[in-house]
């Protein structure tokens, strides 16, 4: 027999002076292979057309639909209701600015953070359209891709105690991104350059190592490993700097 699902959904429209944060409850008959993507769209089309939430690709690759699902940040599009209890509570991701109900503004946050960590290849070399590409080992290309798989969904940031407490902490996502450039020989930044970017309390030294982030990452990015490698590397450079200053 199919279940009657109960949804408790956080509601607030910051643009509406009459709106106050509260929770609305909805009921829906569960159908085979029901995902939160299908469920939320049905709720909006059939029950309450003011319901606000974000989806784009609906195939877990664009990172739009991060939300807190029964207390845990995750991607709504690939969450099957059959994996959840009959009562489902949905909240917007914390840390990011609320647009309305379950929709949050991740765009501004990620752009600012990418600017802060200078998320691009740093090189003086000009592109030569006549020349062959620089060679690279295939294994290295694969390793870079491993870290490049982050979809900026914000789940790791939302789950992170540090990021929730201090607005300037760049989060596991950013540290992983830096690790990606450290690995890439096309980026000519030195260790000291990277240290300047993340060797601070807003960066790697702000991380308390609680590792909630890796647990929730829908891409299963090895965040623990990257944080560890970066911490050791940056700690070492920090020590060297300290030493130099004393001398």
């Amino acid at each position, binding site marked *: 027999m199919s279940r009657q699902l109960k949804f408790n959904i956080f509601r607030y429209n910051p643009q509406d002076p009459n709106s106050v944060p509260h929770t609305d409850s909805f009921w829906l008959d569960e159908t085979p292979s029901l995902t939160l993507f299908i469920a939320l769209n049905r709720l909006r089309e059939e029950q309450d057309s003011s319901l606000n939430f974000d989806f784009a690709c609906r*195939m877990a690759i664009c*990172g739009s639909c991060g939300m807190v699902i029964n207390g845990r940040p995750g991607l709504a599009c690939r969450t099957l209701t059959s994996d959840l209890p009959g009562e489902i509570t949905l909240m917007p991701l914390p840390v990011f600015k609320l647009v309305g109900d379950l*929709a949050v*503004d*991740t765009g*501004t946050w990620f752009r600012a953070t990418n600017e802060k960590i200078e998320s691009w290849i740093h090189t003086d070399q000009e592109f030569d359209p006549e020349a062959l*590409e620089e060679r690279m080992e295939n294994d290295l290309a694969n390793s870079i891709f491993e870290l490049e798989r982050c979809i900026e969904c914000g789940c790791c940031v939302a789950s992170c105690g540090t990021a929730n407490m201090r607005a300037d902490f760049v989060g596991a996502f950013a540290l992983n991104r830096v690790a990606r450039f450290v690995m890439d020989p096309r980026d000519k930044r030195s260790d000291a350059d990277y240290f300047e970017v993340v060797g601070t309390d807003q960066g790697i030294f702000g991380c308390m190592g609680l590792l909630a982030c890796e647990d929730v990452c829908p891409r299963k990015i090895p965040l623990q490993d990257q944080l560890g490698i970066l911490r050791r590397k940056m700690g070492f450079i920090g020590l060297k700097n300290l030493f130099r200053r004393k001398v």
Partner: protein
Amino acid sequence: MAYETFYSDLVCIGAGLAGERVAIEAAAAGFKTILLSLVPPRRSHSCAAEGGMQAALGNCAMGEGDSPDVHFADTVKGSDWGCDQEVARIFADTAPIAVREASHWGMPWNRVEAGKSMCFKGGVCFEVEDKAEKHGLITARAFGGTAKWRTCYTADGTGHTLLYTLDNKVTQLGITVHDRIEAVSLIHDGDRCVGCVARCLKTGKLRVYLSKATLIATGGYGKLYSETTNTVINEGGGHIVALDTGLVPFGNPEAVQFHPTGIVPTNILVTEGCRGDGGTLLDVNQERFMHIYEPEKAELASRDVVSRWMMHHIREGHGVPSPYGPHLWLDIRHLGEKHITTRLREVYDTCIHFLGVDPITQLIPVRPCHHYSMGGVRTNKDGYAYGLEGLFSAGESCCWDMHGFNRLGGNSLAETIVAGRHIGRAVADYLKGAETTLRTDLARQAVARDEERIKRIVSGADGKENVYDVRNAMQKEMMDNVGIFRNGTDLQKAVDNLRELLVRSKKVGLRSSGVGSSPELAMAIKISGMVRMAICVAYGALMRTESRGAHAREDYTARNDRDWLTRTLAYWRNPDADLPTLEYEPASPVFHLPPGDRGYGKCEIICREEMNE
């Protein structure tokens, strides 16, 4: 009426690969550029492309002897001679440069590994040997409809990594991005476009972008169909604002591609790379069938051909019955765990999470569904839109037109950055000479019109039609009657029903208050534009009495080069009309490769007279 105005040299409506690549070119030339997008740029649909992009580098063993000439020929054949051959030439010549440039910017393309390795074709294993001198250069995989292995890739995250690479460049150049912004109309005086009115999807407020040049790079319009691989934001926003001017034509609206392998039931695409890497299609008896219809290319004929044979095979009663209708199987089991969990990991994840199927040991249920829009805002070979000066278009939203009536897999990602590079330069050149007065009076009028329109929708002044009912009815009509196989009776029915839906779409009234970002209002603003586009597709298809590429008429099965070696130009000149005006132009100004047999698919052809001589 208070609204914010943003001034720039170039405003790009759309920040997917095409929009960003144009923006990079203009910004690098020193022009103030603003990118607009419904979502943060990295969430644009380009991120969903898995398989790869074509460029004739000829580095891998199976790509040896490849060249832009071969790529050009494949593209023209793929288009069923519907493309503009000048454009296809620019494209094939530039693609290798664009790939290398992306590499220079940080794209982790997969590389050639010298030595012997095992590959599959049509389920049969064979050995290839990559040469030492090519070791470390950018490699390629097989895709449908190509003579060589030419599709460059990064595992199965090519679109994602390419988009992140370009957006990193955009960030580096400090290009302004306004996300959660939806363009709702173009600002123009009948000759010249000077920007757009847009609605902020955070606050719901209207705002104005005044610019010397305006680019439409809004991607495809898959959401005209109920079953599509496209993202939910591919609603044709850019096409609607262009068509609404009455001046800019929608080129080849009827040229719509169906992809052979959408998973059943969610229509999530599994990449052509599955078949490129040796996956096979099986029927209800778990037997291969494509080699019977296409002895040479089998599973790797072009998409239109494979999709049609699959539907044909299902119609003949060989489909696998399911609660969601009959489907076929995709089999990649023989590729093995390592291959599937590395090179096809996205496919693996999709099957596990959305189907509960393990493709290492189980078959994947697939069926053709809508995938790509070859038609779009018609431009010349440098991206200048027909009909309005200062308006440009690039990418999937554009009918540039290198795809004609069928796009080859891997040619679309390639188009975004190749056209972006080429058209970006044309835009920069245009800006160097542009002496445009950015007329605020035009902006004021345009905002007033849009504000009035929104007020009527919110208050329900014209009626209380439910916007979702209208949209769902439109999508179903398109799926049922303007699909893979088409015929005059069904198409006429579609046109008639869509005309009725157009009337209903103008009576939409909100159920909610419409205050703030209001997704219901966003849909209501564009619904009648979407129905107009659907009518263009259906009517264009009805009038085109031949079969070409993805446009397959059961009542006109031959490709008719005598009468239809043309491109449809659909204009919506009168806002109160319920049909577009269709005009036609020659498919190509030159025929370097004269119309002939594609070498796959059926080949009944009515020849041009001069060709018979």
